[in-house]
């Protein structure tokens, strides 16, 4: 069976040292990698918009008829208003926040579950590996959207923002666990693992020190991509009408705009605000993840010209 890790001095030292290294690496990537820099700044702007500025909303933007409906963008209504009298600008800020929360929850849950299971399967091997991989493969193979839709429909009454994140996580963890396992397996062959074994570290010691640090860059990239995937999935579910229709998320905004034939009636601001925002979020996150993978892969770094 799996031993429970003892968080002793060694582990804390490793984690602490790791954090320091992390902030150094961050500064370094930011400075040297154009992809990362652009993406990060863009994302930061969006983040500020969603979380910071959104908090300044005068009223709950989800409420209907807080403003005159169907107004185009103007000085008074920066992004116009919806048919239901909602202020698009403030609605957008809250939507950004909620979509990002969903993305964050999914990334935290799915990519870490995948990471841990993958490392376990790879490091332990044997029966545990087989069991985990069989489960993982069945998830990978089922087309995720129909099942997600099914679940979303069935959970309609109890759905909220965090639960949405968890729901999407169900289909996001298998892939990283497969990838991590493959990486760990390739590592097992290498010399420095043998050194660890001979130095007397137990499974968990090995796992934390050697495997984790190696897998970390990939993990960060994957986490970033998961955020992207989650926001996209929520939007997909929303467009189909199975998201939380009373809440404010980017997907739900799009749903209502489509539902009210916004484009057809000329209310383009209602539809395009969330669409453009989603695109910007996606591009920024993608640039960030690309930056990280370029930075950590020496060959790619050379290709990128640094």
């Amino acid at each position: 069976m799996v031993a429970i890790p003892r968080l002793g001095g060694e582990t804390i030292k490793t984690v602490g040292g790791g954090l320091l290294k992390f902030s150094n690496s961050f500064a370094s990537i930011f400075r040297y990698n154009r992809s990362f820099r652009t993406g990060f700044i863009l994302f930061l702007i969006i983040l500020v918009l969603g979380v910071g500025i959104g908090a300044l909303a005068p009223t709950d933007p989800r409420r209907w008829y807080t403003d005159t409906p169907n107004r185009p963008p103007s000085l008074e209504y920066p992004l116009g208003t919806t048919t239901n009298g909602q202020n698009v600008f403030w609605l957008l800020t809250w939507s950004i926040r909620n979509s990002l929360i969903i993305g964050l929850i999914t990334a935290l849950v799915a990519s870490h579950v995948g990471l841990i299971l993958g490392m376990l399967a790879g490091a332990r091997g044997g029966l545990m590996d087989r069991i985990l991989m069989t489960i993982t493969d069945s998830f990978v193979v089922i087309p995720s959207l129909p099942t997600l839709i099914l679940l979303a429909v069935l959970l309609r009454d109890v759905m909220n923002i965090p639960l949405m994140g968890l729901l999407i996580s169900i289909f996001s963890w298998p892939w990283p666990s497969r990838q991590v396992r493959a990486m760990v397996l390739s590592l097992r062959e290498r010399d420095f693992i043998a050194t660890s074994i001979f130095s007397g570290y137990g499974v968990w010691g090995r796992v934390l020190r050697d495997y984790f640090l190696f897998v970390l860059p990939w993990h960060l990239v994957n986490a970033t991509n998961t955020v992207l995937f989650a926001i996209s999935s929520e939007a997909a579910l929303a467009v189909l009408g199975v998201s939380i229709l009373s809440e404010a998320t980017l997907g739900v905004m799009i749903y209502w705009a489509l539902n009210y034939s916004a484009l057809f009636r000329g209310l383009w601001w209602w539809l395009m605000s969330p669409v453009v925002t989603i695109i910007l979020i996606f591009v920024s996150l993608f640039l960030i993840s690309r930056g990280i993978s370029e930075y950590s892969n020496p060959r790619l770094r050379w290709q990128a010209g640094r």
Partner: protein
Amino acid sequence: MVPLSRLLVFIVGRFVAFILTVVIGVTVVFAIPRLLPYNPVEAQIGFIYSVGQFYDPSAIEMLRQALYELYGLKGNPIEQYFAVWRRLLTFDLGPSIMNFPTPVAKLIGIAFPWTVGLLTLSIIISWTIGNVIGTVAGYLSNRRFSKMLTGVAVVLYPVPYFILALVLMFTFAFLIPIFPLGGGLTLIVEQINLDLILNLAKHAALPALSIIIPGALGWWFLSSFTLSSQKKTEDFVRYAELKGLKERLILRRYLIRNILMPQTTALGLALGGIFSGALLTEVVYAYPGLGRLLYQSIINNDYNMIMGISLLSILGVSAATLFLDLLYPLIDPTVRYR
């Protein structure tokens, strides 16, 4: 040539994988609703009540029984499970609720060709164009067009189909109205003539482009670009250059040919995602395929239809993947001849 026994083992193996996938998929689709505290029959009855009408309680009871039967929820779980399989294999998926009593299978049958047509066309075009452009750009990576395309790809790659669909809709159906805002056809089918085809094409154009553009200039471009950049440093390509072979020949026979093969495998893996994306694109454009059918069934609480489409999706995507898997050895000589 590979010995027949080996070939058979391969085919059988793939079939087994296919069946396993379908079984697991169907079981999951079967199990989930039954594990959750959701009772579609009660929900349906509640829906009827919420519309405001009053019915005689005994009539409601009859309805209830009928619904249980309709939804395949009669009997214990084992019986239900086998009932689902029987339905699937005989393509009798029960009647649709929103279009009662039209069978689900019939409605799916009408929508299915639209989706398959759109998908097949879009996938073939995007995969071919994307891989060719990507390979060339990867080989000639210091030319200007290559850098520009890569920049474009970086923006297009993360964007899901339906988002691009909205952008395209906004630009080419609203701002500059070249294409219609939605639908599949606005003519009555009297005869197959040029008008009909043109009309079809105009309506399919934007949905198809929504799938083709992120594919060709995004996903397939980037992956083949990466492969090409790697391959061009490999021995056999270097040697071809050393022999003084023309650039075009190298691109065609050495790079593109050797990249299309792993990309075929990649296509098999990506089919699920492409399919899902296509469904959503259809919803956005109100294109009369499976996507829109699904959307309607969700709004109208058509449980049978939702089930039917889910089951069909699993079956369809798995079958397509199987097809590609079996096709692969025919293309790749290193696998075919041992």
